[in-house]
Structures are given as structure tokens and as C-alpha cells.
């Protein structure tokens, strides 16, 4: 945790997920709701400004933490200080001659494309739709490409291709769900201060759409995890016996807790939102409970990202060793 490389990785993962999750939320949840429910312009403007800030700040943090990741990794590989890694060739060789560096460059281009797409203002509704889809696709690629700098990129052969594809979907699904939670919390928040009769239903519709997105995300997370399971077997022991396994178990426990909260939202609270609304209870209890649950999910999701960031840098279960120790598998 105190390792600067781990901090940079965690920060980068969270920032990338926030970029994609917020953009996906705006495109697949907020905008359809606004269109259908003829939302008050003040609400649309308020939400648009908040989510835009969230995306810009996240993009800036992703760029800074991505740069830190590259430099700290170069220093680590070269056994040097960051300054030495820059003045000797280590950082530039890492950037130009390795897969990590190649993916890093591709992702920088994606970030630049996304920035351009977000800055452009469409003159026609068709143009706006096109720009919306462009942002969705580029931001999904930005978070999905993280899979290729991980372990999946190192798996040999055609199995590696499948492994990387599964991990790519895993990252996009995680980004869509966890990264979209802050936008959901923002979306639900202003409802009480607004004075439009449709407000509780606007929030309820958003929750319903996000929940559908979440089911797709959870399904993808489970399926891509199952692909991993198909590749490798027989390491249940390592789950309990190694730090790596214990961390992974903790991650799965957090994931399960999040799925349970999301299920409660979907199956119990959402039907009650409609009931609350018809009984003229403007300050919907169910909506507030959903928002509370989203905040808890957000905290749990933060834990998931922290664990993922640490997992990528420690030896896996069954491969714990002292520095300099021989890694010999003498079959």
C-alpha cells in the first residue's frame, strides 16, 4: 500500500473507471431519462455541469497517475531513481520497446481523442448522438485496454488472446458499474431540492436503467471470471494460504456485498419508489435508501480497486519467494 507503484496503479484504475463509468452513465442512463421525462432544464444543466467536471478531473488524474506509473516502473526495472531512469534510457526504452509502453502510447492517443470528442459541440441532434457514441466507445477502450498491461497480456499463445479479451471485458464492465456510481449518486441527490412533479419518477427511471446496466456488468464480470477459471484450476488452497489468495477472497467478498445491495435496490426498493410516489410522499424513503446503498456500493467498490491495484504487483499464490531466490521449476 505504501509502495508508490501500487498507489499510482490504484489511482489510475479508479480515474480510468470514473471517466468511462460517468460517460456511460450520461449516455445510457441520464440522457434517455431526460429525453423521456422532459426533465426541468435546470436539472439537465446542473447534472451536465457536474458530470463534465467529474470526467475532466478524472481524465487529468488518469494522465498524471499514468505518467507516474510509467516513471516509477522504469525506476523499479532499472533499479534506479526516477531521475536516473529518465536520463539513462530506461524510461524511453520502457515506453518504446515494450508491450507496456505500446499500450501506454495507445491509451494516451485514446485520451487525446476523448478530449477532442468532449470539447467538440455538435450543431445537429444527429451530430450530438454521434459524439455521444464516440465518447462511449473511446472511453470503454481506455478502460478496457488496461487488461493488456496486466497478466493476461503475458499469457502465451492463443489462450493469451482469449484471456486478454476476457480481461478487457472485465475491466469495461467494472468501469461501467463501479465508475458509474458517483454519477448515480449525483443524479439522485438534487431531486429533493427540485420542485417538479416528475422528480421522484425521474430518479426512479434512472435507477431502473442503471440497474439494468449493472445486471449486464455483473453478468460480464462473472462470465469473464469464468473464462479465467476455465484456464486454470486447483488453486483453492492458495486462496487461504497466501496473501494473494486472501486479498482475492476479500475482493470477491466485496463484490458479493455489492451485488447483494444492487439486488436489494432492484428487487425491493424500486417497486416501492412507484408506491411512495403515488402516495404523494415527495421525499421518497425508497429513493433515499437507494442513494444510501449506492454510497455504500461506492465505498465497497473503492475497496475492490485498492485490492486490484495491490494484486497486480505482488507474487501470486504458490509463487511466494524471497528476492533473488531461484525460480527454478526443475521438472
Amino acid at each position: 500500500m505504501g509502495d508508490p507503484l501500487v498507489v499510482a496503479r490504484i489511482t489510475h484504475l479508479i480515474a480510468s473507471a470514473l471517466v468511462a463509468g460517468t460517460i456511460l452513465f450520461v449516455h445510457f442512463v441520464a440522457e434517455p431519462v431526460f429525453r423521456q421525462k422532459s426533465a426541468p432544464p435546470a436539472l439537465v444543466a446542473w447534472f451536465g455541469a457536474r458530470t463534465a467536471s467529474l470526467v475532466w478531473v478524472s481524465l487529468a488524474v488518469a494522465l498524471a497517475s499514468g505518467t507516474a506509473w510509467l516513471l516509477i516502473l522504469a525506476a523499479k526495472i532499472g533499479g534506479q531513481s526516477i531521475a536516473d531512469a529518465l536520463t539513462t534510457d530506461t524510461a524511453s526504452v520502457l515506453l518504446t520497446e515494450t508491450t507496456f509502453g505500446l499500450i501506454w502510447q495507445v491509451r494516451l492517443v485514446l485520451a487525446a481523442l476523448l478530449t477532442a470528442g468532449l470539447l467538440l459541440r455538435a450543431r445537429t441532434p444527429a451530430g450530438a448522438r454521434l459524439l455521444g457514441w464516440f465518447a462511449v466507445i473511446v472511453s470503454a477502450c481506455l478502460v478496457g485496454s488496461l487488461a493488456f498491461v496486466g497478466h493476461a497480456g503475458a499469457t502465451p499463445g492463443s489462450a493469451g488472446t482469449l484471456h486478454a479479451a476476457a480481461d478487457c471485458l472485465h475491466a469495461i464492465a467494472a468501469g461501467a458499474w463501479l465508475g458509474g456510481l458517483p454519477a448515480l449518486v449525483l443524479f439522485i441527490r438534487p431531486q429533493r431540492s427540485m420542485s417538479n412533479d416528475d422528480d421522484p419518477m425521474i430518479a426512479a427511471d434512472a435507477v431502473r436503467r442503471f440497474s439494468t446496466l449493472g445486471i449486464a456488468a455483473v453478468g460480464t464480470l462473472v462470465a469473464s471470471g469464468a473464462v479465467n477459471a476455465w484456464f486454470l484450476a486447483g488453486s483453492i488452497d492458495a486462496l487461504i494460504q497466501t496473501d494473494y489468495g486472501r486479498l482475492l477472497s476479500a475482493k470477491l467478498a466485496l463484490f458479493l456485498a455489492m451485488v447483494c445491495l444492487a439486488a436489494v435496490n432492484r428487487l425491493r426498493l424500486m417497486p416501492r419508489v412507484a408506491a411512495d410516489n403515488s402516495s404523494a410522499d415527495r421525499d421518497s424513503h425508497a429513493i433515499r435508501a437507494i442513494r444510501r446503498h449506492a454510497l455504500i456500493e461506492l465505498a465497497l467498490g473503492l475497496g475492490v480497486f485498492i485490492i486490484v491495484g495491490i494484486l497486480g504487483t505482488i507474487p501470486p499464490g504458490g509463487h511466494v519467494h524471497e528476492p533473488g531466490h531461484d525460480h527454478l521449476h526443475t521438472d
Partner: protein
Amino acid sequence: MRHIFMIALVPALVAGATSAHAHATLATASPAVGSAVPTAPRAVSLSFTEKLEPAFSTIQVLNSAGARVDQGKAQVDRANPTVLKVGLTPLPPGTYKVQWRVLSVDTHTTEGSFSFRVGQ
């Protein structure tokens, strides 16, 4: 019901991900680890469990006096990026130490060493 089904799937999910984060470890070596070979090999070839980064993967072969007997830069096999090779100068009989240090594509460095013997 759908959620219960998902929860049931989770252990399988965990099992998969646990060993997925493998670092590059030495799978096979030629000459083999700790082996004695009758004739001098022309190269040392190491096969790893993961794809390697050529820019940061090295092999050094030392004789019993500690002098290098390899031909310098190790090459990653183009057809099979998990294999790292280095040429050798003609080796007289004796014991040689192979020191390797590799960066796998997932940016983890691992290192190790072993010996082999040429002749009796």
C-alpha cells in the same frame, strides 16, 4: 433466483483468477538445470511461463573464474516469445553458471541462476 445463481458461480471465478497472475518463471532450460553435457553447447536457451520483454531480459553465462562466456545480448525467440536465448563462445570442459533476469510482458521482473557442466 438469478442472483443466487451468480453467487454460486463465484468460487469458480476465484479459482480462475488466483493462478492467472503468474510471473515469468523458468519452465525448461537447455542445457538442463544442473545437468552434465558431453559436448559444449553453442547456446543457452531458457523457456519461461510467460511472454518476455526483449529490452529488459538478459542471460549471463559465467565460467568457474567468473568470466563471461556468452556472446552478449540475449534474444527473445520471434516465433515463441517465452523463449530467451544467448550464444556461447566455445566452452572448454568445466562448470558454468547461468544467471538470468527477465521482465515479463505484465511488467514483473524475476531472476534466478543455475549451473551446468561440460564434459566429465
